[in-house]
């Protein structure tokens, strides 16, 4: 564990450990048990149907509220309704990057295989959400601004976020040894995490200095039903992510632990 020798990581490690001890002493629940793939695999299998059904219900309710209950915007007409998918997707893209970096960091620092697998599983979902937010953003930009793409700070930094995901995924894909892939991905994700705020602010300054007045995306007031639809759909996206990530983790476990006897027993039952 020589790579943990630098002070930054030792402080991080001590504080995370203290926090974990504190959290575990409060509850009578053995968290460590589910850090083992053999125990997590069946648990994830049981959880997936629940999250899938919650996802379907939330999507149905959210889309109903968003498409039929929410009023038409007097400035943008019906076209504004694309925000009900655009905004949750953009938020998910950002949250999932942070989550991915945290999981990758935990997997690296504590040598926790499952956490690294979670990071790998999250990366694809995060990239998809970021891509959706880019596509819907440009579809929305056409009626609202008259152009498909503007070099607006938010759009540009989302594009860069997408590139960061692509870098993470392709780095992991080109390393054959899973342990090295996990760790290399962790370094890249953490470096990216430090860089995200710097990139965001630099793009914002670049934008304001080059373009003059920028178009503000949130120039209209929100009716409560609009907000409700957006939040319900955000919850739906969360539930979808959990379900899909759990399913992906199960596939990753199947791939990496194919020699393990417990997996064969699991497949029979």
């Amino acid at each position, binding site marked *: 564990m020589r790579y943990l020798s630098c002070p930054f990581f030792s402080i991080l490690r001590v504080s995370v450990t203290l926090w974990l001890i504190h959290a575990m002493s409060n509850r009578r629940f053995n968290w460590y048990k589910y850090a083992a793939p053999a125990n997590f695999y069946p648990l994830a299998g049981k959880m997936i149907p629940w999250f899938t059904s919650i996802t379907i219900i939330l999507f149905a309710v959210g889309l109903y509220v968003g498409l039929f209950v929410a009023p038409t915007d007097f400035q943008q007409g019906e076209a504004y309704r694309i925000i009900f998918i655009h905004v949750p997707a953009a938020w998910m893209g950002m949250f999932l990057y942070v989550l991915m970096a945290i999981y990758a960091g935990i997997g690296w620092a504590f040598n926790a295989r499952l956490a690294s697998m979670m990071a790998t599983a999250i990366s694809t979902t995060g990239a998809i959400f970021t891509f959706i937010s880019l596509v819907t953003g440009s579809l929305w930009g056409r009626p609202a601004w008259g152009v498909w793409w503007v070099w607006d700070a938010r759009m540009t930094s989302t594009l860069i976020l997408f590139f960061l995901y692509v870098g993470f995924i392709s780095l992991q894909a080109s390393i054959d040894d899973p342990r090295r892939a996990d760790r290399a991905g962790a370094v890249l994700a953490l470096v990216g995490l430090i*860089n995200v705020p710097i990139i965001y602010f*630099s793009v914002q300054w*670049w934008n304001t200095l080059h373009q003059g007045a920028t178009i503000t995306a949130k120039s209209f007031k929100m009716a409560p039903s609009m907000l409700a639809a957006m939040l319900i759909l955000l919850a739906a996206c969360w539930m979808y992510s959990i379900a899909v990530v759990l399913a992906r983790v199960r596939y990753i476990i199947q791939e990496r632990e194919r020699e393990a006897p417990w997996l064969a027993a699991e497949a029979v039952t």
Partner: protein
Amino acid sequence: MFGWLVRRDLILAWRRRADVLATFFFFVLVVSLFPLGIGPERELLRSIAPGVVWVAALLASMLSLGRLFGNDYQDGSLEQIMLTPQPHYLLVLAKILSHWVISEVPLVIVAPLLGVQFGLSQNTLGVIAFSLLLGTPVLSLIGAIGAALTLGLRAANVLVALLVLPLYIPVLIFGAGAVSASVEGLSPQPYLLLLGATLVLSLVFAPWATSAALRISVE
């Protein structure tokens, strides 16, 4: 050990001058291609010059990243260097420093000459050189992380581009911003200060991340 490593890398580079010159001429060539592609209008060239020079510097420094650890990794000397009892931070910093001297300093020197091709004023030429002087070490520092992560991988060269270019964006914005400000007759100082801040920040973090990545890759 620090001085020894720098000296060794410089001698090695001197014996393989062709590699170093290739990067240098790549930079010159790319910058000279833009007027051919866009047309010789003086005003247009003057306004795109900052971006062109900086993007070319980014690409040139990215091309040379394979050399940073690649040769040492292949002949096994990287492993020996890592086994010495010196702090890895300093060893990595020495490698990055010599890489900067070999591949980036020539670009800093030649960039003002290329600026003349674009009809920039004397004042702006100074800003180009100074912004590159502050910004190119950041490119080497950040690039080293990518180079260390992709050591010995199949498509390492293409992969490095994917990993490193998004992280270069702040440097590009600040560097090209400084030159643009100077072209428009404004003070480039805020951009140069931001570049300096980026340099300090990456000087603290990048060698750590690089040595962590090296240990993962060499293991």
